[in-house]
């Protein structure tokens, strides 16, 4: 069946089996291998991409469910010669070792910061009716869907925080 998605600003039409998972379409068909397959069951977050600006696990979604959607992968976040601030922050803060979870961490962080900007609550939010204060506990809680087996968590928190603090 035919599905058209816009990936990193470019419309792509794929003719694929209904079973095709969004993650596999990105990696195997479109050869955008920046998005990683970790657990393939929504437990690790390595496959996180932004769909219409919202972070999701691309391993738990059918390509067919995304006809007409806009998908942003790590390849659309920045370019090698023009890294996004969050990418520069991960380099500066040494926020990874093996790097396998990093594309998911970065896409998740971008989605998470948008959720904070829209004042979405988390379980660390004490005052549900006031503005969100992005404490380190808030930040860790909001990023709990992304595992890092190298355990670079303190540096990941520092990298994301540095982007928040640099924002105007």
């Amino acid at each position, binding site marked *: 069946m035919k599905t058209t998605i816009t990936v990193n600003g470019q419309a792509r039409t794929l003719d694929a089996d209904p079973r095709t998972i969004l993650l596999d379409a990105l990696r195997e068909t479109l050869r955008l291998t920046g998005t990683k397959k970790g657990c393939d069951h929504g437990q690790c977050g390595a496959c996180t991409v932004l769909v219409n600006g919202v972070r999701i696990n691309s391993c738990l979604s059918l390509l067919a469910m995304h006809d007409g959607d806009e998908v942003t992968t790590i390849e659309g976040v920045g370019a090698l010669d023009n890294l996004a601030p969050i990418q520069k922050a991960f380099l500066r803060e040494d926020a990874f070792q093996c790097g396998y979870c990093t594309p998911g961490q970065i896409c998740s962080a971008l989605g998470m910061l948008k959720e904070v900007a829209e004042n979405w609550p988390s379980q660390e939010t004490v005052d*549900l009716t006031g503005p969100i204060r992005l404490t380190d506990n808030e930040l860790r809680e909001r990023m709990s*869907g992304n595992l890092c087996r190298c355990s670079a968590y303190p540096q990941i928190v520092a990298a994301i925080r540095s982007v928040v603090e640099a924002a105007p």
Partner: protein
Amino acid sequence: MRPFTYERAATAAGAVSSAAATPGARFIAGGTNLLDLMKLDIEHPPHLIDIGRLPLARLEDTADGGLRIGAMATNSQVAADVRVRSRYRVLTQAIVAGGSGQLRNKATTGGNLMQRTRCAYFYDTTKPCNKRQPGAGCAALEGLNRNSAIFGASRACVATHPSDMAVAMAALDATVETLTPSGQARAFPLAELHRSPGETPDVETDLARGELITAVVLPPPPAGGQLYRKVRDRASYSAGLVSVAVVGGQIALGAVAHKPWRAERAESALARGSTAEEAIDKELAHASANGQNAFKIDLLRGLIPAVLAEAQRGVQ
């Protein structure tokens, strides 16, 4: 995954008539539970009906001061809604205690209610499970059963319903609205949606084949405090060992039964003037453990009075 056909429903009426006409067809919206189970070959529907874009994602005030939550509203959307946060805070607290940010962005209200009950042996296709294969037996009875049910279980099944959201909705006395296969709208208490396992643990709800949840309606919030508390092995992104939702004098428990468990015996004892501790004992007298899950009973004995007290704090 096994092959299946896929269609996107244009209307709710079209979705239910297609589901009723196609044996084994399943609705899909967020897909976070169904696709996981399909990858594991636990679910293998021959046909998927994508209902994710049906116009059922709105939250709207009801005439009596309650709130209607469309079945396609995502968990994130519901938790962030200002009306939910201010008037039904127990629901926001429950939703943000479940899953991860990515999952809550995808999971829908209807799908959360319809997620399968959870047990390690339901997921382990090398072991017998009456839920997966009726009549096969239950490996959890003598196996690793730390997470098993303590209320309303049977010899056939000790699995628990994993939802946090549904526990808060049960405490809030929510109503479920559906569209039946014949196109009729139907409404019934959320407490009547899920079944206890009995001899047929493979049947988890009382919905007819093809019946579609269209909304969950919350009545006006009752007087008194609201609080959701979840106890688990990790601080985040982990299923509950037990959870408690308190709404005034209404108490629902999570991860202890095949469905969100309203602690009605405790509620009526409280209403008659019993202390929290006495009231909880009335409920726990009907709990039964089948091994490693015995700790859940002790845990609830301490937890429920603490949550009741904290919910009331600052209300008077």
